[in-house]
């Protein structure tokens, strides 16, 4: 439960006490957001007294009469606008002239309540405003140090870590209960699936370590001049057994003259991820072409495959954490959903770029641009 502060500036005591009474036990609930608001009403009978209270109490909402004994309501509104205060102002007016309404709106009044008003009119106006305040607070909160994003990451992570455990536990339970009978062979499928899930979990843990490194951008970074063709060759050698198993041909194009200042381990992570994806999401008998070239002040790394490709909606999501494209064709492919997120974060730390083009059933092309010394044009 949060409490919003409302300040009423009106010279009529009846209006002030009326508003206090109506809002005393009023609540606005948002069950979806697990949030509810109640209200604390403060009163001032003149604009001058009102401004003092505004400075002191910092209200969230101001209910403002225009016709006041000293300075007018519209001047209070101007004061708030000039000081760029974060207050939602509602004008209470008995005879709202069009002129006043226009002036008040351009000075930032959010709403008008005609005088006299019924309790219901006041409540529904306050309800609308509360919604606005709430949304504003939510947006501010989201922007605060990306906290929300971290929370989301952790909750998805725990889901991703628990899913394989639950699956393995489920199979073990079935085996314990001898659900497939006394024959040991009847359980082969379950054992294979458990081994597969354990493999997936191990990949996830390794990727998480890479991600932590990439996200912090610091650690023991060892920047030196590297020959990217050498690094690509190392990655291809690592992937060779996997490519043979999948019957995918690996080709490397490029010459030894392409050099870059970078951390070799980070470059390896980029190549490993792109090349292993190109094999993983390929077809039997397919090819992977890795091309390294220099273009102006940039190094371009191109990884092309003849695989299953992606549709345009999927392309927009693939660099997010834990995203895995789920289709009939990918159902037997395991992965952590972190590989490309890691690649993207690493490339960002080098002020580089990554672009994807893809066609379903034809293949995908990942183009990485890394600056040699100046940012890429």
């Amino acid at each position, binding site marked *: 439960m949060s409490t919003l502060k409302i300040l009423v500036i009106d010279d009529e005591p009846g209006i002030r006490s009326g508003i206090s009474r109506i809002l005393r036990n009023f609540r606005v609930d948002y069950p979806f957001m697990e949030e509810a608001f109640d209200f604390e009403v403060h009163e001032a009978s003149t604009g001058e007294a009102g401004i003092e209270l505004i400075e002191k109490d910092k209200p969230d909402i101001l209910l403002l009469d225009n016709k006041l004994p000293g300075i007018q309501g519209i001047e209070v509104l101007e004061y708030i606008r000039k000081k760029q205060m974060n207050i939602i102002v509602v004008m209470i007016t008995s005879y709202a002239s069009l002129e006043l309404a226009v002036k008040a709106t351009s000075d930032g009044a959010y709403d008008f309540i005609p005088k006299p008003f019924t309790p219901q009119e006041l409540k529904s106006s306050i309800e609308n405003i509360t919604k606005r305040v709430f949304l504003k607070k939510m947006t501010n909160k989201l922007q605060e140090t990306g906290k929300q994003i971290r929370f989301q990451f952790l909750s998805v992570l725990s889901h991703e870590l628990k899913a394989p455990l639950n699956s393995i536990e489920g199979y073990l339970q079935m085996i314990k209960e001898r659900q497939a009978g006394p024959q040991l062979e009847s359980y082969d499928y379950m054992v294979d*699936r458990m081994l597969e899930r354990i493999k997936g979990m191990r990949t996830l843990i390794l990727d998480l370590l890479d991600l932590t490194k990439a996200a912090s951008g610091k650690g023991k970074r060892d920047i030196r001049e590297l020959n990217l063709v050498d690094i690509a060759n190392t990655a291809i050698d690592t992937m060779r057994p996997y490519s043979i198993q999948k019957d995918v041909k690996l080709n490397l194009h490029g010459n030894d003259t392409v050099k870059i200042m970078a951390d070799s381990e980070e470059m390896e992570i980029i190549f490993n991820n792109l090349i292993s994806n190109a094999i993983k999401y390929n077809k039997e008998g397919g090819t992977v072409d890795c091309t390294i070239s220099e273009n102006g002040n940039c190094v371009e790394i191109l990884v092309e495959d003849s695989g299953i490709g992606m549709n345009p909606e999927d392309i927009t999501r693939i660099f997010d954490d834990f995203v895995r494209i789920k289709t009939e064709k990918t159902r037997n492919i395991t992965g952590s959903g972190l590989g490309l997120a890691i690649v993207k974060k690493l490339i960002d730390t080098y002020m580089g770029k990554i672009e994807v083009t893809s066609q379903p059933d034809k293949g995908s092309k990942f183009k990485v641009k890394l600056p040699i010394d100046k940012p890429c044009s």
Partner: protein
Amino acid sequence: MSTKNKLILIVDDDQDYLYQMKTRVESFGFQTLLAESQKEAEELIEKTKPDLAIVDLMMENEDSGFILCYKMKKKYPEVPIIIATGVAAETGISFDINDENNRKWIKADRFLEKGIRKEKLKEEIDKLLIKINS
């Protein structure tokens, strides 16, 4: 009233959970129909009307299960739906199906935690099937 030979639709994007649930439900004597996504389930129910559905909450999207429930109830208002989820344990977000406010928008009949015991699952399925048959 026999609940045997009833067709249970199971929807979950984790193929292992799907397999385990299918084995369990079939051991109770029911027939099963499987889908690995909200989309696949929607296609299946176009042609086939199950007697009950067990649906995972988070599939393609975080709320796939809710949307599927909504669509199913629109097509077959009488078919009971169980949402099986690990959400409460994982995120701390809890949905209470018995809460009046939630009932209005969550179109499921039961919420069950994924780790539910076999006997309890059987009991819940039977209860829901008997309710519609009486």
